[in-house]
């Protein structure tokens, strides 16, 4: 797509009819969790949308977020949105390598100064920046350098948004999130391990349609997708209310699709769109497949006491330590009682009783 083409012109040039374009807008609006009444506005905005430059930096990550996004082999709405943006730099997807790739990044930054979108996946090690480098440049330096002239930053995945897996106890690399390093740019946290692909493209679509940042919650996540917790949208909620729980993974309750609270489901404290948008084009999500939510869109979800530990059991340590406290109490009890009796004896002796 030529840089000076609008998205509408681009699609027409691809042979997409107006009807096809309206279908595309309808699906995009649905993806952005906009009401159907917004269709006209979305159509007009997308018709005239210019092609934004996007630089994608991958740091300490598993590439799961990119994988989540690119799981299609044929043109889909997601891939069309991806085509509509000018992905000027992406390690896994780009053909260029070596110095040529780095030059492409610098050129894109210069040409689109103040207007390009920076997408980051993976956490950034700060204990020793040498733990993760690209072309000899540390992640820390590359992030600061590239963020300087970006319009906004999208931190894709829990690693970039909150530190993720590398950040989990004991955090050997000193991994931190994007927002721990960049404090003077708007940052959109699209968390999840990985995020639902539609959520990633929904944010890009919002940017494409409105040229602005969507409404964010206290953790910097788009409210449209992270505004509800899983528990409140879970179809198994009636079982929770009625007290019908699966006790183990293969028991009768599990087969009947009962609530997974006792098996460690973190749905009540996790905010994401899994229960409504689901995964693999609306096929299913972990709870529907019989496994409790692990809370992967929340900070420090690896260190919340274990995926199979129920929320209400807490994360309070070992029973042995508790018995130790009891033993100490018993010792003090015996000691103070004996001391009291000794005082009593002494007093009685003094009285000559």
């Amino acid at each position, binding site marked *: 797509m030529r840089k000076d083409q609008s998205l509408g012109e681009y699609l027409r040039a691809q042979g*997409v009819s*107006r*009807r096809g374009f309206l279908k595309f807008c*309808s699906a995009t609006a*649905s993806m952005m969790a906009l009401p*159907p*009444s917004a269709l006209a506005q979305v159509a007009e905005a997308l018709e005239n949308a210019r092609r934004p430059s996007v630089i994608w930096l991958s740091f300490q990550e598993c590439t799961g977020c990119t994988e989540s996004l690119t799981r299609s082999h044929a043109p889909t709405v997601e891939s069309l949105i991806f085509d509509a943006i000018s992905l000027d730099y992406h390690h896994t997807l780009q053909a260029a390598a070596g110095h040529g790739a780095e030059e492409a990044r610098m050129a894109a930054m210069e040409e689109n100064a103040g207007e390009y979108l920076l997408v980051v996946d993976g956490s950034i090690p700060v204990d020793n920046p040498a733990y993760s480098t690209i072309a000899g440049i540390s992640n820390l330096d590359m992030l600061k350098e590239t963020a300087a002239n970006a319009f906004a930053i999208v931190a894709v995945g829990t690693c970039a948004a909150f530190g993720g897996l590398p950040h989990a106890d004991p955090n050997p690399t000193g991994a931190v999130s994007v927002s721990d390093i960049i404090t003077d740019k708007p940052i959109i946290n699209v968390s999840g391990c990985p995020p639902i692909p539609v959520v990633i493209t929904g944010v890009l679509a919002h940017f494409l349609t409105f040229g602005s940042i969507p409404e964010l919650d206290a953790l910097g996540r788009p409210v449209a997708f992270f505004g509800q917790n899983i528990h409140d949208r879970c179809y198994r909620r009636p079982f929770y209310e009625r007290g019908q729980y699966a006790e183990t993974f293969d028991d009768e309750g599990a087969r*009947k699709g009962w609530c997974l609270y006792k098996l460690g489901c973190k749905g009540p404290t996790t905010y994401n769109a899994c229960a409504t948008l689901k995964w693999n*084009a609306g096929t299913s999500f972990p709870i*529907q497949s019989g496994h409790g939510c692990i809370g992967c869109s929340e900070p420090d979800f690896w260190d919340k006491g274990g995926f199979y530990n129920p929320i209400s059991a807490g994360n309070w340590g070992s029973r042995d330590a508790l018995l130790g406290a009891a033993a100490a109490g018993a010792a003090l009890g015996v000691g103070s009682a004996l001391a009291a009796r000794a005082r009593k004896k002494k007093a009685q002796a003094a009285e000559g009783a």
Partner: protein
Amino acid sequence: MSSLDAIPVTAEVASGNVKPLLHEVRHALRRLAKGEDGTVIDLQSVPLAPGEAQRIEELLGKGEVRAELDALGPSVVQETSYPGVWLVTHSNTEQAVVGRFIEVTHMPELLKSQQADIEHGISRLEQELEN
């Protein structure tokens, strides 16, 4: 796949959203009958238990009109057994569903020929006639 299908998993209780949805359709039909604007309901925005989307389709039934579109993948526009209530299902070229709507209207917009396409068609026809 067949051995996985053999695992008996049944959800006993629904999300509780099927009936309210149908009531919403009823209200929308009343408004349409009075001459007011049509309504579009995005089914993907409503939490539905497994099997409930199919149940809604069954409850609405099939009417007299069925249109199949081929634009960026197949789409099906089916009038339900309730006139004025249309079920629109958009799929992409991979046959994956990307949009599911209930449209309460006289004629879904997408079925009408679009102005931009008509104009494009005119220039194509003129070119054809010149040759």
